[in-house]
């Protein structure tokens, strides 16, 4: 018996408010469904957050609709539970309700288990929607009910969308000790990282998100890959292997110093050009005194043609102990300093005038000055 485990697909998520990002999430989902079919699995479990919100865009609904039909056509059962994102916080119907007649089996606290049969084999599939931590009493009661029901079957899978203290100590609803210990496979969702651990009578796994839901998840992707798990329940011990997706959009994460900005940006641009798909560029600019407006306009101009989007962050560096910003009683005469430094009075004059206009961030005037200077041929 082969099970495909996917989770946290967040369909309909329009990251950075970009249509392309919404499409990215659909593309990765479709790729995974195709790959799962190729693996000849018997059933898929989706452990929550199928959609980004309880009111997904129609496109997201269509994507799921076609996947449900495709799986049904291949005779693959599809179990899903509503997650934290795709059910209403107060009251409402989850979008999953649309797909039950098409063959999706939605497990909720009202109907928290099903027995999947194929040939002479059977698997007890249990699960229910994400339960928030203020309803932990109900959560524990459901778990103990499922645990005793499960004891009637040989192979059993528990599908949950909950955070577990031991893996995510900052915010959790359950501790490992509170999970029933008689299941063979625990298909978990909610935590976006891939986690596999021996537990109960077999394995516990978070299959993680399928696209980088935020920048940090892209780093996880680089290390661990993203996608689904294929679990083989035929033997005494479950066997698990990764099923990776290839179409995750690249993120390009870089830090630069504010000095030599132009040069550095051009160097980055040439690196970005090499990507097949336009990457999402995350650029952190460090420096003592950053002219944010200037940096922003330069970075967008140089990098945008080759990137899907450029996300800028600034890090104001602090003076190191012992350093101080120069303080003098008399005002510095800039023109004098330029003449002193550059020797050639014409160049010095240009430098000074450029300095004056650039200080006001007047790029146009600076261009004009430079052109005049060049065309005058004084150089």
């Amino acid at each position, binding site marked *: 018996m082969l099970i495909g485990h996917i989770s946290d697909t967040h369909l309909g998520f329009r990251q950075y408010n970009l249509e392309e990002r919404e499409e990215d999430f659909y593309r990765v989902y479709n790729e995974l469904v195709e790959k799962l079919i190729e693996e000849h699995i018997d059933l898929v479990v989706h452990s929550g957050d199928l959609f980004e919100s309880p009111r997904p865009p129609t496109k997201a609904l269509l994507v799921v609709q076609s996947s449900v039909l495709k799986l049904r056509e291949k005779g693959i059962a599809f179990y899903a539970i509503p997650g934290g994102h795709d059910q209403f916080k107060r009251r409402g119907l989850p979008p999953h309700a649309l797909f039950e007649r098409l063959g999706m089996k939605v497990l*909720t*606290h009202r109907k928290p288990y099903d027995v999947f049969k194929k040939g002479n084999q059977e698997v007890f599939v249990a699960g229910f929607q994400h339960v928030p931590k203020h309803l932990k009493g109900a959560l524990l009661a459901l778990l103990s009910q499922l645990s005793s029901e499960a004891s009637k079957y040989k192979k059993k899978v528990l599908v949950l969308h909950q955070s577990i203290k031991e893996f995510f100590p900052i915010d959790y609803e359950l501790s490992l000790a509170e999970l029933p210990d008689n299941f063979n496979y625990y298909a978990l969702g909610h935590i976006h990282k891939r986690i596999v651990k021996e537990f109960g009578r077999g394995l516990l796994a978070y299959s993680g998100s399928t696209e980088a839901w935020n920048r940090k998840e892209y780093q996880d992707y680089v290390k661990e890959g993203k996608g689904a798990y294929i679990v083989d329940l035929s033997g005494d011990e479950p066997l698990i292997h990764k099923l990776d997706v290839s179409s995750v959009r690249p993120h390009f994460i870089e830090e630069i110093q504010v000095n030599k900005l132009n040069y550095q940006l051009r160097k980055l641009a040439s690196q970005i050009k090499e990507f097949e798909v336009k990457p999402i560029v995350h650029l952190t600019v460090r420096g003592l005194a950053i002219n944010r407006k200037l940096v922003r306009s330069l970075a967008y101009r140089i990098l945008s043609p080759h990137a899907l989007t450029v996300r800028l962050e600034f890090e104001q560096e602090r003076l190191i102990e012992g350093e101080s910003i120069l303080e003098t009683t008399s005002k510095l005469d800039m023109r004098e300093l330029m003449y002193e430094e550059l020797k050639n009075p014409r160049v010095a004059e240009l430098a000074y005038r450029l300095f004056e206009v650039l200080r006001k961030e007047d790029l146009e005037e600076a261009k004009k000055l430079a052109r005049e200077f060049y065309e005058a041929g004084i150089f």
Partner: protein
Amino acid sequence: MVLGDKVRKVIGYTIGEATPTKVTFISKEVPTVGQYVVLEYCDKRVLGMIQSLVRGSVSITENIYDPTAVERIRIFENSGTHYIKGTIKILGDVESLKIPRTPPPPATEVYEADSNTLRQIFGNDSGVGIKIGVLISQPNVPVYVDINKMVSRHLAILAITGAGKSNTVAIIADGIAQLGGAVLIFDMHSEYSTARFKSGKPNVIQARINPVNLSTSELLKLLNIDQSSFKQERYFRKALKEAKRKLLSGLIHPDQLLGVIQRELERYSEEDRYKPDRSSIMSVANKVEGLLDRYEHVIDYYAPDVVDQLKLGRVNVVDLGQVDEEAADVIVSHSLSSLLSSRKRYTTRGEGIPFPVFVVLEEAHILAPKDRSTLSKYWISRIAREGRKFGIGLCLVSQRPKALDPNTLSQMNNMIVLRLVEPSDQRYVQEASETLSEDLVEQLPSLNVGEAIVLGMMVKIPALVKIDKFEGKLIGGDLDVVRAWKRCSSILTKKAVVETRELDNMLESW
């Protein structure tokens, strides 16, 4: 006989040699220990208390070695050969409670003291008493204690756990509050903060540590910097001084105090001239950080002093249940010192808190131990000595009297001693108290729950008292564990049912 008593019951006669304070008697009745009796001599009615009793038979002595002999004697003997012998402690004449200078003559009749006489003695004729219970031997006689004497001469409540200490404290505190007084309980086990008093809800004061108000020695205690770590103390004082300077000059807000101290310490650790002491400085910095971690939930830079939150006519409770012993010590010591100085200011200059306060210290053996020094111990002993003049009364409550500081305990002129089993505890209490006689001490192990020996100036004569049961709810009584388990599981089931209904609401069915 005379003096208009209705029923006079002779229960025996004095025999043998008597002293002005003690006389032996032989009885035909079976009196009880602690019972009050009246003897008439020197033209006075003199009150006494039965302190010990023996009962025996002339024919069945200890020299019989044959059980069958006893069997035979039993058949022939009537109770006429039995005797009851006892000793009476003379307490004084009924009117003035002065002890006559002559002993009672032999064969003086011993009467049972009638309840009217006793009511007079234990009654509330001064109007400043509160009822704490009834006499064990005569339950129709209520016992009042004189609050003026109790507050000015302090009180110790001593007993093993479960003998009724908390109940006694609650009765007294409620009584004082009902009289319109002010009680302040340092509640080590969060027993009183949820209690329902007749005087109304207690005024619960949150236990908070305000580093800005603490003295340097209190801070050092919280930091665990003892006197032997003089280098650490030096650097801490230096950093504290700097931080306080900044605070006073308005450069920083109160809530930055500990942070500034930490940064100061870090600065020292980087300076070359302090290099040899670097490890000491780092250790202080660690301790400051540890303090912030440990007391995160009780540190409040804007918390008012306990003294400023006291309310008249209410039971004031400082809930120390959430803090460890060190923090409790600091909070108690700080509150006591500011209470004393506030009361002193009031008596001398009319500023400060205008009413006297009765302070109850639970687990007094932790706050004022015999063989260790704590911050509170100093202030407890000072209030024990000076409190009378400034209207601060102390009540020390302890289940381990022998671990209590003897100097402080001996200042507690009133005592309510409930059941005490351990002989060394009994001896210790006896040594500390002038009025607790050997015979009474012998009574201590045989007291039942809620029964006490009440001694000192707050009662005219020592009494064996059955303390009233406090009606409001108190936590701290022994838990019915089995019931608690059962209740808990039914609560969990109910909770699950309610919460599942909420899940039904969240996720509609389709």
